[in-house]
């Protein structure tokens, strides 16, 4: 299910003194099954774009096509809303039910799925996010922060979306929590072939997961391409005001001394180690 964003603009509070154009003339294509990262400073329009892609907002201008369905400024009912799952920032703040089971089944129930099928989905979802079955009858509010977030995620996965949008999924989690969540996203992508749209400020996550990165600035797309392309050209990165991933930063430090320089297209520590090994074996002074 490919996504095509065609020359859209979005204006908040149109016709008031507080009018603000959050996105202008943006075009973007997302192939089915890739991990698309969206990065940009605060206020650059990331959340607005998510709102549009998930069918919660209508573009003021232009059109969005998801699979067969097209949405423009005048579309009444947005057809693709049920195909897109959104995990908003701090999703644990949206939990409400008395038990974990009820909270996870909220989405599928709204979709009108029969009870037996819902049960399957709930069990499948907690399995995916790595929660124990014994938690199902507990109150979601008695869990730790990391567990609550996984419940919220399970609640979205139970709707079996073919496109999954995540807005800063690791914000506020410690290393173990973030690690678990990231490998979960990776797995989902591998196993279920869902398209994943990831909004993040963490360049390490972009380098590690994304197949394609969109950089937004003041509501406009200023870059869309592969992470290697984005991070390997330092001058462009500086111009965009972006930090490189931490491994790239380390390589930069090393390159202050080491000649010929280590390529900055390495994103995994193993790759860097292998590269250094090779250079030591061959002898660095050829």
């Amino acid at each position, binding site marked *: 299910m490919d996504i095509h964003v065609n020359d859209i603009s979005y204006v908040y509070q149109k016709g008031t003194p507080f009018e603000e154009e959050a996105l202008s003339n943006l075009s973007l294509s997302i192939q089915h099954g890739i991990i698309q990262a969206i990065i940009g*400073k*605060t*206020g650059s329009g990331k959340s607005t774009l998510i709102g549009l892609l998930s069918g919660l907002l209508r573009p003021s201008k232009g059109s969005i096509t998801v699979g067969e369905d097209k949405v423009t400024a005048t579309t009444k009912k947005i057809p693709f809303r049920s195909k897109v799952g959104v995990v908003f920032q701090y999703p644990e703040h949206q939990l409400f039910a008395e038990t974990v089971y009820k909270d996870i089944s909220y989405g599928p129930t709204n979709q009108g799925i029969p009870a037996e099928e819902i049960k399957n989905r709930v069990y499948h979802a907690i399995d995916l996010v790595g929660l124990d079955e014994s938690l199902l009858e507990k109150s979601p509010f008695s869990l*730790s*922060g*990391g567990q609550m977030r996984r419940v919220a995620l399970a609640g979205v996965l139970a709707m079996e979306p073919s496109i999954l949008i995540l807005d800063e999924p690791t*914000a*506020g*989690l*410690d*290393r*173990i*929590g973030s690690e678990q969540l990231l490998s979960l996203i990776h797995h989902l992508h591998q196993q279920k072939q869902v398209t994943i749209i990831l909004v993040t*400020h963490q360049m390490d996550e972009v380098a590690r997961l994304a197949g394609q990165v969109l950089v937004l600035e003041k509501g406009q797309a200023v870059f869309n391409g592969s992470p290697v392309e984005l991070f390997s050209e330092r001058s462009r990165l500086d111009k965009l*005001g*972006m*930090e490189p991933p*931490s*491994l790239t930063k*380390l390589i930069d*430090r*090393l390159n*202050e*001394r*080491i000649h010929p320089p280590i390529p900055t297209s390495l994103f995994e*520590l*193993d790759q*860097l*180690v292998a590269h*250094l*090994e090779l*250079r*030591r074996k061959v002898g*660095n002074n050829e």
Partner: protein
Amino acid sequence: MGTEITLKDVWFHYYPQTESRENWAVQNVSLDFQQGEYVSIIGSNGSGKSSLACLLNGLFIPTEGAFCINGQPITTDQDRWELKRRVGMIFQNPDNQIVAPSVVDDIAFGLENLGVSREEMKYRIPLVLEQVGLSGLEKKEPHHLSGGQKQRLAIAGILAMQPDVIIFDESTSMLDPDGRKHILRLMDELHKSGITIIHITHQATEAFLAERLIVIHQGRIMMDQSSKELYANATLLDQWGLDVPIGILLHQALRDKGWKLSEKMESEEQLVSELWTSM
């Protein structure tokens, strides 16, 4: 004269009846902070960082143990109130610490509480606005500020009270990289001006900017060392669920492959130069 904070054998818990001692939020902590230090406290979610922070400025009272400022035990409500001027605290969520509906009025809030005169407020407020880089936004309403600006406003509100110590409880964790950098730079400047900085975080890269690092895990202090010493021992951080700096990971991986590198690395600098020579 400055402010020296001392905790001696401090224990603290939230729910007295239900918990056995090994579940207490803060367990047997003894720490000492000298005027002018720059310290990071790191620990994973739920390790007791915030509870410790609230003990340091008198928001919480130790269940057991002693809490002293410049050697004087803090016991009465009046003591704790006076401590608020000396030890300021910036919280995690920028939204939930701004009281007033405009920038200047929010900075004035703390000063009003202390009973500072109007003339003095008029003198201090522009100075702190300048210091945190918010000049020109005096009349802005808080919800029109970005997260980073809100956090700087909170810092200005504390700075105006002229504290000796500022505690940052994960104050960068909800900000974007720009906002984060700005706050870290501000911490450094404040430290240089003589203010004690206590930075609570679970991000190793931020923590290593400090001079001294304290690791807390399940309410207990696991390490308390200079950041150089701790950098050398950083592989240990992994067992408490914390990030190991990437330079240390590289160092370890290369040593495993038989590279002749020193056993301990004190800084990334050292790693870079040793790597070059052994190639």
